[in-house]
Structure formats: C-alpha cells, structure tokens
C-alpha cells in the first residue's frame, strides 16, 4: 500500500537517489547532497512548526509500505520570493490604435513581474517511473490539497504551481532559443542548473526590464508560451481539476505556465470533510448519499507533524467512517480520531 507522509530526516538518501532520476527542467529537485540536506532540514522544521510559516517548505514522500521504498515526492512552499526575487512574465495586452488612419492592432506583451511574490507554491512533484500507474500520480499530487484544507491558516490566499515548459524531444526549448539565449548567451541546461542552485534571480537581472512584444519572437517561440512539457500535461490536468487555472503568468526561461488559485476556492476546501473513525450505524447507511461504487477517497489524518494520507475505498457516512484497521494503522490513527476525506476525482455533478 502507498502512503504519502511528511518527510523525515531519515529520507535523505532515498530522496537523493530519486533526484538522480529527474531530468532537466525540474529545477527544484537536483541531486546535490548539500542542497538536499539543507532543504530537508527546513522541511523537518516546517512540520515541527519551529520556523515562521512563510519560510516553511512542507515536503511529502510517497512510501510503498510493502517494501519501504520511496516512490515519489512533492512539496508545498509556504511563500515564494521573500528572500530573493521571484520572477515571471505576465502576458499583457497593448492595443495600438489610430483612429486617424483606422488601424487597430492588438499586441501581446511579456512583462517581467514579481506579481506572485508571497504566494504559496506547489512544487517538486516527482513520481518514480516504476510507480506511474493507476491513481498513484493523483494521490501524490492531490495530497497537498488535503493538507492545505486541513491547515489553511498556514498558507497565503494565493496558491501557485509552476509547470515545466515545452521542450522538443531533443531538449531544445524554442522559447529559450528565441528569447533568453540572446540575453544570457548560455545553454538552457546551464541556466536551468543555475536556477536550481538558487541563482535564478541573478539570471533574471540580466533580462530586459521593459515589456517585450510577443510578435518579435520567432513563431516557434510564440507557439509554446504557456504550453507545458509533454510529460507535464497530466500533472497540469490534475491541478486544474482541483481549482487551479492559467492566468497569464509564464516562466521567464521556458515560458511554462504558472497555474494559480485562491486557496478558499480549491475543491479540497469546499468538498473535503472531517469524519470520525468508527462504526457506521446501519440506519445511517440508508440515508447516506449514494457514493459512486469504486470511487476512491483520499483520506488523511489531522496531525501536522506526522501528516499521512492514503487512498481508500471506504467513504464517510454522516461524519463517521468505518476505516479498515490496516488503513488506520498506516495513517497512525485509531477509532475516535478524526480524518479528512475527499473524493479522489471531482464529482461529475457536485450539486446534486
């Protein structure tokens, strides 16, 4: 069985091994022992609540309880851009119009911005290829929404997720070749590596400060603005199901989209429910809403320092949930404890 849980100091080696399998373009997970152990220390302090909320970095690992293997990782950063500037391009519109000669031209522009400073960020999602089956990806990605729904006071109202931008099969980023290369004069991989070691703002400072007309870019660069890497398309869909949407912010290097949401509007905030572990009365089953047979539930405990979450076939009925004993054990729960539940998939018609 797979459990997603708060990371612990013991996970460092497994995390490192996983990072070696991540390709370029994923800047927050690099196989660098020093960086990784620093980050892990922050994550452990975050769950222990020994550092300020905006400095926190909640990392979660997905563990296979059958063999103790780490199958995936994901994270929520309390706030971005508070220690070094956080840059994005905002896609803006400029209209050039002359009534005199009856010309009306609508131009898209890229504005270098720090608009997303202070937002909570979903990041560092990686699922080991061996585990890319069934609902595992969903479980790993969506665990974070359940965590946010359980502890909303720890996060800012604005939530973002940077998506890896489009690259050709060769690894070439058309957007970078059309724009960034002219200003940085270095290979995309190099930029990517610098970004990973926290030098992104240095690079951004080399970027032109004035808005740029999209029309000046080569067509292949224009075409990929806001487009995700092929391998990231499923991840994007998952986030969009949960209430994130593209609002016109893109990465300054590869033009990958930034998805945004207001925390209060997340599906998890509206639909997740607390339930008490215990027997469900026979009479209550009859009045319970008809749950879709086979629709799995995300179930988490309510413990910040030892947050754990699983996928279960058991649904809550009127505030009670008859969770099997082995699942209780994995969640470190016992009868009488509260758990938070959310359907894995959005209901087709949530208002009925």
């Amino acid at each position: 069985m797979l459990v997603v849980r708060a990371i612990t100091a013991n996970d460092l080696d497994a995390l490192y091994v996983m990072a070696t399998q991540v390709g370029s373009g994923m800047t927050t997970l690099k196989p660098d022992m020093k960086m990784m152990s620093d980050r892990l220390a922050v994550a452990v302090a975050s769950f222990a609540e020994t550092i300020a909320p905006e400095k926190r970095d909640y990392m979660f690992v997905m563990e296979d309880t059958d063999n103790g293997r780490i199958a995936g990782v994901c994270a929520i950063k309390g706030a971005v851009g508070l220690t070094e500037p956080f840059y994005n391009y905002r896609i803006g519109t400029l209209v050039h119009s002359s009534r005199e000669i009856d010309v009306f031209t609508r131009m898209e522009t890229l504005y270098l911005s720090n608009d997303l400073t202070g937002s909570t960020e979903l990041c560092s999602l990686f699922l080991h290829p061996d585990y890319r089956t069934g609902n595992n990806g969903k479980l790993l990605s969506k665990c974070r929404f359940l965590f946010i729904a359980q502890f909303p006071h720890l996060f800012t109202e604005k939530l973002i997720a940077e998506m890896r931008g489009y690259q050709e099969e060769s690894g070439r980023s058309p957007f970078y070749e059309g724009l960034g290369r002219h200003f940085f004069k270095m290979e995309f991989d190099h930029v990517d590596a610098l970004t990973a070691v926290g030098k992104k703002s240095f690079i951004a400072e080399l970027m032109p400060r004035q808005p740029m007309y999209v029309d000046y870019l080569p067509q292949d660069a224009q075409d990929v603005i806001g487009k995700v890497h092929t391998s990231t398309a499923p991840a994007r869909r998952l986030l969009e199901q949960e209430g994130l949407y593209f609002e016109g912010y893109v990465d300054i290097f590869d033009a990958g989209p930034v998805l945004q949401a207001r925390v209060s509007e997340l599906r998890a905030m509206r639909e997740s429910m607390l339930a008490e572990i215990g027997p469900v009365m026979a009479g209550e089953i009859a009045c319970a809403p008809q749950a879709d047979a086979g629709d799995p539930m995300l179930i988490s405990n309510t413990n910040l320092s030892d947050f754990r979450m699983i996928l279960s076939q058991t649904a809550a009925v009127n505030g009670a949930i008859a969770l099997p004993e082995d699942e209780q054990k994995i969640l470190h729960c016992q009868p009488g404890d509260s758990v938070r539940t959310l359907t894995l998939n959005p209901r087709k018609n949530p208002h009925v």
Partner: protein
Amino acid sequence: MYVVRPVELTDIAALEALAAVSMPGVHTLPKTREKIVAMVERSIASFAAHVDIPSEEAYLLVLEAPGEPGIVGTAAIFAAAGSNGTYFSFRNDVIQQVSRDLNISHSVHALTLCSELTGYSQLSSFYVGEREHSTPEAALLSRARLMFAVLAPHRFSDRFFVPLAGVTDSHGGSPFWDALGRKFFKMDFLDAERVIGGARNRTLIVELMPHYPVYVPLLPGDAQAAMGQIHPSGELAFNLLTAEGFEADDYIDIFDGGPILQAHKNSLRTFSGALQRRVALADEAPDRGREPQVRYAVAAAAEHQFRAVVTHCAALESQVNVALSADVQEALRVTEGDTVICVRI
C-alpha cells in the same frame, strides 16, 4: 557659373520636372504640384520672416546651372524638426548586461522610440542631377544650407540632423519595415509612407509604434542588416555629410531603418571653418603662379539675399579681404566692401 539661391515661384515648373526624375522616396522632393507649390511658398515666407525662435520655417535652396534655364538640384533645411509635433526616431541603445555573480558581461542592442531629435534643425530634400554628382557644386549645394545657418544662427537650432533613405528592394519593400512597423501598422511600407505623407511627427506614430524597446537580436537577420544602411541613392549625400562632420549610428528612421546623421554645429566644418571676409576685386589678369589657389564656397552674408557659389582664390586664413572676380560678385550680388563668408570645399 553654378549658383545656389533660395527657391522662387518661377522655379515651380522646374521642380516638378525634377520631382518626376528623382527617386521615389520620402526624404526627397514632394511629388505633386500642389505640395511643391506649398513648399516653395513656405520657403519664400520663411526667408522673409523675422525669426526669434526657430519654428516652422523651411528653407529650400536650388542649384542653378550656368547658361541654362531651370534648376539642377535642391536642398532644404527645416528650422526645427517636428515643430508642430514631435519628431520621432529610433535611438540605438546599447544595454550592458552585467552580472558579477555569474561572471557574465555582454551588451544587447535595443531600439527605443524617442523624440530627442525634436527641435533639431533638419536637412532634407537633397537632390542633385546626375551630371553634377561628382562636382564641387554638389558639395556647395549640400553645404549652402549650413552656410545659411552660419549667417543666420538665430533661425536654427544648435544641432542638426539628416535622415537618409534606408534600404528597399526593387518592389519598394523594406525588410526593416516588414520586421517592425508592419506588425503595428498592418500595411506595406510604401502604403504606410503614403498614409503618413513621409512625416515623422504625426500623433499616429505614438499611437501605433512600439512604446518599449525593440531588442535588436530578436529581429530577423535581413532587418538587422538593413539598420543604418542607406539606399544607394543616398550615397552622395551620406559622403558629403560625413565629410562635413555628421555622425551616423545613434539614430535610425522608424520606418525603413535608414541612418539619421546628426551633429552639434561645433563639430561641423562649415561652422568651425567659415571665414568672414570683405570683398575686394580680383585682378583682371591674376598672376596664377604667385600663390596656390584654394577652392572655396562663398556666400553673400546677407540673410535676406542668400546666394552661394564655388570659386578659387588664395588661401584666406591670413587675409582680411577676399578677391572675387566681377562675375562672381555679380553671381553673389555683392560689390567691393560687402561681407561674404567663405568655407574651403
């Protein structure tokens, strides 16, 4: 003798004939009779005007060939570019990209729409017939505008500029326009020039042209190559002006990317080298062997009776008078004792 003088109403027919043979472009003569008449009338009024502050005056000079009717060249100077608006151009900026942390240092070129040339005096409409192309008279015609400015500095700015036509293909297309202006104007180069009447001071330029820098590396190769390049027809003007002291590279035209030469008057040879001398009568039979003869452009120092010719005389640096033959005096409409200004040519 070739004479440069202010245009007159009687020149209109000749100007029309010239306009028909001169190149299609916007930095040369107007094409229609109506516009030619307007330009001539404006020039006559400008020469007659008493000017305190340079404004909308436009002075048109013409080159008369000896012994033939009509004119063989034109050259104009506007007192203050964009006087009833703003003169727009692209400034060639170099943005230094430096990051000590990353050990990166390089520069990026950018074009910025600017109005800095507004109020400069603008030279334009230079045209000289094929026959006179490599003669000193071509230089005289180009330079006469600045000699007039030396004589009447209050009529002009301290700074001058000259836009020269940029590169176009045989169909009148401009690679620079296609990469830039077309995106905003959504029309062909010549159509746009027609719509705007060749002007660079219209409000619609602000409305339509990019407000933010255009980063040169993002432009296609042919557009980059066209930046600051002159149309072959502008070569003579370019050579004369750079010899005069004008500098290219700082500004280019917003439509075709042609170079805009500019200079402060102190760096122009006409200003620094103009000598004011009193007219004396030259010997009827000068002793040619006595002193080497130098070629000068000489202009009558009369603001309202401007005329200029090319002549030869002894070097003037150490003299009080300039010896001019009777026919030169007649061409300049000066007599002994009058003042002229002379510039080596």
